[in-house]
């Protein structure tokens, strides 16, 4: 193909946009068509003039507020960083686990039998069947409460998940802990668990802090349960089982212990929130 004055390849040649093969073709054709050399020279001069003119044009810079916005975004990205101990694939998995756990908690709450009475000793094992993990936690709570009662001098014996105590009248009374939906703050624990997931997602950005908040519910439930059992045992010892059963701590105790457990939970949330970088 013969080259002409009005060939874009000449411009590409002048702008050094051709590869070796392309340049060779143009140069060989220019040898046969000498006037193209003048055209290329003219083009090269025009390119230099245009290049100088455009280079002299001032480049406006960003305003300080826009630079600060970019910096803020960078800090935000840094705070979203996944912890080094979680590989990238694992991080996504943890996120999905949290969603599944949230959905499971909601289903569990809907499916839970409604609380209908406040009788000590009434065994309702559905809770334990639904959640073996919770059962394990309850057994551990019972063991810990048993140890605390022994240490504090309460006359107590343990048979399985039942704790036998002698009240003020030295009558043996048994009350079960752990297997009893009535005696366990199961609802409170589930609510706390769901709250930890929701609040973590709302107020915390890094996955490890959300995970920490959710995991904190486990020791919280454990300690709360131990304290609750210990308090009831103390009431039974000092007031007698009959009085203890009628006491407000039995009827309205769960909300009280739930509110108490919210204090360390809220403190942890505030602390983790303070650790979040400000954006």
């Amino acid at each position, binding site marked *: 193909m013969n080259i002409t004055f*009005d*060939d*874009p*390849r*000449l*411009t*590409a040649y002048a*702008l050094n*946009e051709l590869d070796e093969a392309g340049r060779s073709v143009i140069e060989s054709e220019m040898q046969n068509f000498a006037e193209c050399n003048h055209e290329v020279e*003219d*083009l090269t*001069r*025009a*390119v*230099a*003039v*245009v*290049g100088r*003119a*455009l*280079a*002299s*044009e*001032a*480049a*406006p*810079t*960003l*305003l300080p507020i*826009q*630079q600060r*916005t*970019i910096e803020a*975004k*960078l*800090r*935000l*990205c*840094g*705070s979203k*960083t996944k912890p*080094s101990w979680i590989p990238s694939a694992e991080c996504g998995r943890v996120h999905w686990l949290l969603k599944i756990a949230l959905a499971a908690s909601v289903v569990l709450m809907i499916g839970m039998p409604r609380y209908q009475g406040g009788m000590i000793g009434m065994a309702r094992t559905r809770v334990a069947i639904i959640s073996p993990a919770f059962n394990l936690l309850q057994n551990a709570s019972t063991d810990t409460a048993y140890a605390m009662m022994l240490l504090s001098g309460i006359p107590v014996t343990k048979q399985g998940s039942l704790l036998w105590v002698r009240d003020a009248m030295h009558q043996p009374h048994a009350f079960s802990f752990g297997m009893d939906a009535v005696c366990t703050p199961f609802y409170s624990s589930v609510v706390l668990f769901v709250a930890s997931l929701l609040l973590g997602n709302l107020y915390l950005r890094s996955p490890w802090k959300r995970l920490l908040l959710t995991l904190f519910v486990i020791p919280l439930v454990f300690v709360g349960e131990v304290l609750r059992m210990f308090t009831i045992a103390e009431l039974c010892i000092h007031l007698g089982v009959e009085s203890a059963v009628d006491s407000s701590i039995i009827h309205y105790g769960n909300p009280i212990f739930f509110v108490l457990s919210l204090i360390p939970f809220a403190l942890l949330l505030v602390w983790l929130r303070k650790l979040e*970088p400000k954006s």
Partner: protein
Amino acid sequence: MNIDESRRAEWVRAAVERFSGPLTRYAQVITGDLEQARDVVQDTFIRLCDEKPERVDRFLAQWLFKVCRNRALDVQRKQSRMKPLSQTGMDSQACPDPSPAAQAERRETNDEVLRLLTRLPKSQQEVVRLKFQNGLSYRQISEVTGFSVSNVGFLMHTALKTLRQQMKSETTMRMP
């Protein structure tokens, strides 16, 4: 902030340092407004913050100019949709009251070639600016604008031909 994040932050800062000027100038040509151009460039760098350096770094210039171009075109489209609603109409759009800063800026850039350049069609201005102001190759310009490489070559050729003709006809323009 861990090492990766601090490295990424440095990478973004270096990109801001190097490209904020050229990008603002480029966006200004598309939007026709410096403040909007700055906002466009800010959005571009905010998007860069979400990108992984290893994914973008090899073609950072093309990526930045492409994102900036798309955003600027969005702004321009929105602006053109808003024009018919304006009470002042075309007259005020054609002759806006320039601020002192804009006047100073205009004086700096108001030389012969730049004035001739503004007479060119937008697409030709764009490829010329990307080539001469930002040092992009035909292929990189093609990636930024979405034109084919041969189309970029044709636009460049036509733009330079027109500029040369106009420069020759302009008595004030001195060709060495």
